[in-house]
């Protein structure tokens, strides 16, 4: 169906009598929809609120992970640093990596996917709204469980990659790695549920006319990302189950003395771990592909190439995992094979860089904050990509791997790439989400400060690595020539931290200032994709009516027409093609629910139970089962859900022309999306 839950009004009317006969017990009554208080956030199933919660939670974890990064940099300021003990340092770098990957970059990607993707395809919500809420709560509880280890005996100390057998009880007797295991189990369930949900949403819930090849690039990249998650997360979970059996129940999956092969963990981890890298970067690629055309005033150069290179990265990402293991002793044949596959995954990545550059070529570039961050991504990611090619050369990698050169590489990819894209995306979509613009001047200072701090922090690490500084060392000695660049990197880290604080300051500053400014309107950037044709902030119902899509950048071509020789002419005023806020009463939206929160709440209790006392598992298990029971049995709607004033005409689809919001006289068409 093109439009979730809304169109089959006749069917709803038919079942109405059955519904009214059903008198559920009081506890099973659904919470009322339309609230704005804290309770509405706990019970919400609205993809927009969930997206905001993902983003806000990720920003909090960013501060935690960033604080850990600062601790690392202060410790390495000079030889024989004394801020952290060896034990504390090992926990801090493990938790820094784990936090940044699983609790910051992935969830910010999820925040954009949740908030944005349904808007970009013209959907009311995601396919499974309650599962969406469940995903968020699982992510939150997993992250909290993981970080609660700091208060309950110390964090994990095995590195984010957590190689066996160093992750065994014999070598890591504290509970840190158990927390790591349980926390990532739970966030893994969140990612998996989210992946299924978003894939179904993209494939089934697109607005009429939105074929796959008319989807915005961000939606495409979300689709690829979620497929990567769908297949990657289970591999990690398998490895984690084996590890849990080893650690908690004395199994021998990684016990070398009993004949285990420790490379099993490495293979499983990196079969997950490498697609993981791509699923962290692809959402940012999508954002940049949507932002660059807006501020270049030109369409994306080679939309099919951009899309298919993203899909190609998604496929090829499965064939390169052992390049993390070039020195592990896998043998020259495997090394050669993975060296070659790794080199050639650079091709689709390079295509993207060149297509973005060509998008800007010949444009009229407007250097707004989102544009600056987009250009930042293109340039900084290029550095990360090139250093990536140098270690696809396996013999070179035997010198570089596990040195700071690698640390430099992946920070250029994940910070200079993914994070620059995300910050640019925040600036770009902030008015759409919150109804006010982030201050542009502060935003540009923000960009330059971040660019400075980022390069000062991570560029010197290339040289540190090439001159022999190993990763994951809590200390180094004078006489190795590491002193100077470590100092530069530490200074850079503080500048980088201040740029993050400037961003947070900008949020509150702009929010205060916005009260005296006129509302931003639906389309502050003169943008291209259909999420910009609805009011800002987005009404709960998203679109009214659901637009019919006729081409890529559909909204743009409602405003502008293109002549045969590539000239652009305005055909309609923006005010005339955007949608007005309606009361939305006639639109049926999924009702809020308590149960995703309840069902998710049981999981960390099971986690603590497995670590400390198995009886707790029983309590947690009862909560989970009870939550699912309530989930299954609660009525389909909240008590206030209005069905009476359903009017088939009111949410008829429009025809994609520059017409008034409501196409009067057009009867509802059955338009099936292509693909």
């Amino acid at each position, binding site marked *: 169906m093109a439009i979730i839950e809304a169109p089959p009004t006749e069917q709803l009317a038919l079942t109405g009598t059955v519904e009214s006969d059903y008198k559920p017990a009081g506890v099973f009554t659904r919470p009322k929809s339309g609230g704005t208080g804290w309770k509405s956030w706990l019970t919400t199933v609205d993809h927009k609120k969930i997206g905001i919660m993902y983003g806000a939670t990720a920003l909090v974890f960013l501060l935690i992970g960033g604080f850990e990064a600062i601790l690392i940099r202060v410790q390495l300021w000079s030889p024989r640093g004394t801020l952290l003990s060896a034990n504390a340092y*090992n926990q801090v770098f493990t938790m820094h990596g784990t936090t940044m990957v699983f609790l910051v970059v992935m969830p910010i990607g999820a925040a954009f996917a949740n908030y944005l993707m349904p808007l970009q395809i013209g959907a009311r919500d995601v396919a499974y709204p309650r599962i969406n809420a469940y995903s968020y709560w699982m992510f939150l509880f997993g992250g909290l469980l993981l970080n609660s280890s700091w208060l309950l005996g110390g964090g994990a100390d095995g590195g984010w990659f957590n190689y066996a057998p*160093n992750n065994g009880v014999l*070598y*890591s*007797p504290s509970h840190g790695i158990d927390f790591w295991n349980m926390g990532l189990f739970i966030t893994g369930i969140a990612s998996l549920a989210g992946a299924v949900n978003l894939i179904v949403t993209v494939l089934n819930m697109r607005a009429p006319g939105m074929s796959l090849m008319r989807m915005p690039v961000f939606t495409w990249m979300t689709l690829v990302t979620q497929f990567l998650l769908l297949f990657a997360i289970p591999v990690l979970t398998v490895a984690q189950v084996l590890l849990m059996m080893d650690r908690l129940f004395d199994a021998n999956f990684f016990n*070398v003395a009993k004949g285990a*092969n*420790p*490379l099993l963990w490495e293979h499983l981890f990196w079969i997950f771990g490498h697609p993981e890298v791509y699923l962290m970067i692809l959402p940012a690629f999508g954002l940049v592909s949507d932002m660059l055309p807006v501020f270049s005033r*030109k369409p994306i*150069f*080679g*939309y099919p190439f951009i899309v298919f290179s993203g899909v190609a990265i998604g496929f090829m990402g499965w064939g390169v995992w052992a390049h993390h293991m070039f*020195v*592990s002793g896998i043998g*020259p044949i495997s090394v050669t094979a993975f*060296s070659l596959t790794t*080199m*050639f995954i650079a*091709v689709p990545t390079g*295509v993207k860089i060149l297509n973005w*550059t*060509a998008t*800007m*070529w010949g444009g*009229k570039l*407007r*250097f707004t904050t989102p544009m600056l961050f987009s*250009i930042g991504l293109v*340039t900084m990611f*290029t550095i990360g990509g090139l*250093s990536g*090619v*140098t270690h696809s*050369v*396996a*013999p*070179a990698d035997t*010198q570089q791997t*596990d*040195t700071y050169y690698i640390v430099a590489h992946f920070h250029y990819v994940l910070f200079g790439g993914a994070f620059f894209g995300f910050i640019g995306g925040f600036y770009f979509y902030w008015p759409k989400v919150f109804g006010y613009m982030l201050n542009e001047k502060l935003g*540009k200072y923000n960009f*330059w400060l971040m*660019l400075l701090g980022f*390069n000062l922090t991570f560029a010197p690490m*290339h040289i540190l690595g*090439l*001159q*022999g500084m*190993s990763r994951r*060392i*809590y200390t*180094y000695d*004078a*006489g190795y*020539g590491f002193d100077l660049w470590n100092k*530069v990197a530490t200074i850079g880290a503080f500048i980088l931290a201040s740029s993050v604080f400037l961003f947070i300051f900008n949020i509150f500053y702009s929010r205060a200032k916005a009260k005296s400014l006129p509302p931003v309107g639906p389309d502050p950037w003169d943008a291209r994709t259909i999420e910009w044709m609805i009011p800002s902030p987005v009404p709960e119902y998203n679109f009214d009516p659901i637009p019919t899509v006729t081409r890529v950048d559909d909204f743009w071509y409602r405003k502008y027409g293109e002549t045969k020789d*590539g*000239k652009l002419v*305005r055909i309609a005023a923006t005010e005339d093609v955007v949608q007005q806020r309606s009361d939305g009463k006639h639109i049926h939206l999924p009702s809020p629910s308590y149960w995703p929160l309840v069902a998710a709440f049981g999981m960390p209790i099971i986690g603590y139970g497995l670590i400390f006392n198995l009886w707790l598992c029983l309590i947690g298990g009862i909560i989970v089962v009870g939550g699912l029971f309530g989930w299954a049995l609660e009525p389909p709607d909240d008590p206030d859900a209005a069905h009476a004033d359903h009017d088939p005409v009111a949410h008829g689809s429009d025809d994609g022309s520059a017409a008034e919001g409501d196409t009067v006289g057009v009867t509802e068409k059955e338009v099936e999306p292509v693909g």
Partner: protein
Amino acid sequence: MSRRSTGLRIFGVIVFAIVVTLFAALIYAAFQNDGKPLDTFVPKGPSSQEIQNLVLPVFAVAGVVFVGVMGAVLFITWKFRTTSEDDPEEFPEQIHGRTGLEIGWTILPALILAGVAVGTVATIINLNKKEPDAIQVQVAGQQWWWQYKYDLNGDGNFDGPEDITTATEMVVPAGRPIQVTTTSNDVIHSFWIPGLNGKKDAVPGIRSPLKLEADEPGVYRGQCTEYCGLSHANMRMLVRAVEPGEYDTWVTNQLKGHAADPTDAKALAGKTTFKALCAQCHVIKGVNDEKMKTATVPLTAGVAPDLTHLMTRGTFAGSILNLYDPVDPNDPSVTLPASDVAAAGDPGAALTGGTVDTSRVNRVSLEAWLRNPNAIKPNYAQGGRGMPNLGLTEAQIDELVAYLETLN
């Protein structure tokens, strides 16, 4: 949106200038290799040279691409910027793509990479060629030091009576290939002497080959590069390449034991202490090696460094401490380096079984280590990983050091 702010422009230009300067300084720094014992760009043997021959052109290609992309982006942002004179309703030409161009820039990087791939495969093949007359050495990692076993008679067994077991420091003849086999007694470590070759993980239960050869006599340093737990940072290694004749003398000396009691009374008392406390984990050939063959060592890795020829090594405690002062401490004209490990301590005559120059022995570090190993190199001695604090008295430490000084 096009309102200009002078402050912002100045700030942007300053940041841009700093970043460009930084990149230039880093490229310059990449070629400053003095005083950087772990530098990967200073090959000292055929394998590292082979890697270098591949790496330099790859870096050059990457550099060209880097300059090209950066230059293109900078040019575009300058050339196609919106100026205040521009009509906001005037649009650039709407180009949706050029298939030919895009196919071109898909094929071009593929071709460049194909060239890189040919060189890579050739180098991998070369690096894995077997050397028939190589000296066989098994390198075993454990938390947090390295053990070396030499199969001198080539019977494939590293524990025969004609074989050598040593620790911390690997002695090799310059100009002769060494076939190293890495393995581990506990967790995964990685053996890396950047001057001689790339790294190879030491994985428990797995034996992996690595070729080493030093062109010239000298000391080549390394650092464990696979995170191996608490004291990963303090797990270093050292390859000492010597002239072939000196190597033969070293081998002859290494095969000897220390059955005879030392003549010095203090050293003799130290030997008693060794047998009472240290001999539970450490071996000295001729003293407790027969007994240790049947004993259960209470260590997770099951093994502690062999001390038979301790004084022939330049470093101890996982190569983080110098066993000898790098310069003559009695010479007032030379100042000791700020760090104890800045120079590789030279065992001098002791290396090949000659007398130990006790005036050069770094007693300060040796005594501090015996006093409380955990303070110097964090460990989990209570969990059988690392050396415990034995609560030795100062007199015992003095006697032990006197005894250790006889282990040439």
